[in-house]
């Protein structure tokens, strides 16, 4: 499905990685490793077509993602370092807006339910401004419960989450992979993910990785 060939990325005057090639099939999870500043975030943003690659190509079902444009972005769900939620909207409103923009509007009840599943019961209609760090992250991640994209790109999704939430998120990711989705993930925390379909990729080591 997703194929990466000869990818390189330059930031300022430093080459973060070059000649990176791998591919990802339905039902696989790619776990990115690398120390701070090794270029994980940059790679993920490149895969989402947010950053332009300096060389190489990224293909989705055989087509270049830049050609596909919105057909590709429909398939991608990205959660980055920033939560992308509006401080002045409540959790429910945030969730409904982002789902509608993602192309599948959901009802108030459905959104409410998703937030409750994420453990935000009783906080659904507070403005996100007053939520704690971890609660904001939960609101952002509630999108995962409603989304129909096939490729999830999650940049350190576990930060700020407490143990219960980390467990729950892991189970969601696992369910997505088992039902034929794809996940690209990075985290510095030690997490257990089902070992079967996991690929690993290390950035920033001497010989830049190939899976």
């Amino acid at each position, binding site marked *: 499905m997703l194929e990466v060939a000869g990818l390189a990325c330059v930031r300022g005057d430093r080459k973060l990685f070059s000649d990176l090639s791998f591919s990802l099939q339905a039902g696989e999870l790619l776990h990115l490793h690398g120390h701070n500043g090794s270029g994980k975030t940059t790679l993920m943003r490149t895969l989402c077509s947010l950053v332009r690659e300096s060389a190489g190509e990224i293909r989705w079902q055989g087509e270049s993602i830049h050609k596909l444009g919105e057909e590709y972005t429909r398939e991608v769900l990205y959660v980055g370092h920033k939560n*992308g939620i509006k401080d002045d909207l409540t959790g429910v409103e945030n969730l409904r807006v982002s789902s509608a923009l993602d192309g599948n509007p959901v009802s108030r009840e459905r959104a409410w339910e998703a937030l409750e599943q994420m453990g935000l019961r009783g906080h659904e209609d507070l*403005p996100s401004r007053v939520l704690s760090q971890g609660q904001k992250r939960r609101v952002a991640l509630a999108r995962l419960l409603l989304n129909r994209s096939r490729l999830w790109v999650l940049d350190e999704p576990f930060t700020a989450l407490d143990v219960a939430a980390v467990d729950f998120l892991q189970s969601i990711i696992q369910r997505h992979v088992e039902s034929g989705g794809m996940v690209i993930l990075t985290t510095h925390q030690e997490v257990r993910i089902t070992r079967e379909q996991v690929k690993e990729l290390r950035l920033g080591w001497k010989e830049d990785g190939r899976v």
Partner: protein
Amino acid sequence: MFSAFRTLLGRDLLLAMRRRSDLFTTLFFFVIVVSLFPLGIGPEMNTLRMIAPGVFWVAALLASMLALERLFAIDYEDGALEQMLLTPQPLSLLVLAKVLAHWLVTGLPLVLMAPLLGLQYDLSSEALGVMVVSLLLGTPALSLIGAIGAALTLGLRGGGVLVSLLVLPLYIPVLIFGSGAVEATASGLGGQGHLSMLGAILVLSLLFAPLAASAALRISAE
């Protein structure tokens, strides 16, 4: 597609409501600028009448320029912009929704307020009418053109002055035709020609500005 347009428009209006005071920032600025002049210049009606079109249009232009900073900046900082880029919607449509919301919040109140303020300057009702029409045609064009500048300077610290520098040259024609229309009417010549130029500028910017701004957003979001 249009549901996305409506959602985004609704969201931005809702946000403006929530922050409430945002609704008034630009309007308030406009009112201050227009009202401070009689204070600083003195109350002679003749002078005031003469400078009125200039004052009103300069004030509108400044108000619109200052509001630009907030057009995309908050979305950029909290990451909502990245998410917008990754939706399966044509980006220029989303940009149009944001600009429309922005104009409804910052431009429209100003247009509605203008006739009231015009009374301070002893303008004839005809001149007031033309002023409202010219603002109604001109301010959306300002917002649209400004969106390009705002998108280009996103995330550059001290983008404020850059936006002004980039956007001002494109604003000047609007200013000239806008205040020209009012002046022409006040001095008995018709403002028709000026108004139709404003209309043409509006149509052109409606067609091209969203495209240019969305291209600029893609560049800036890297």
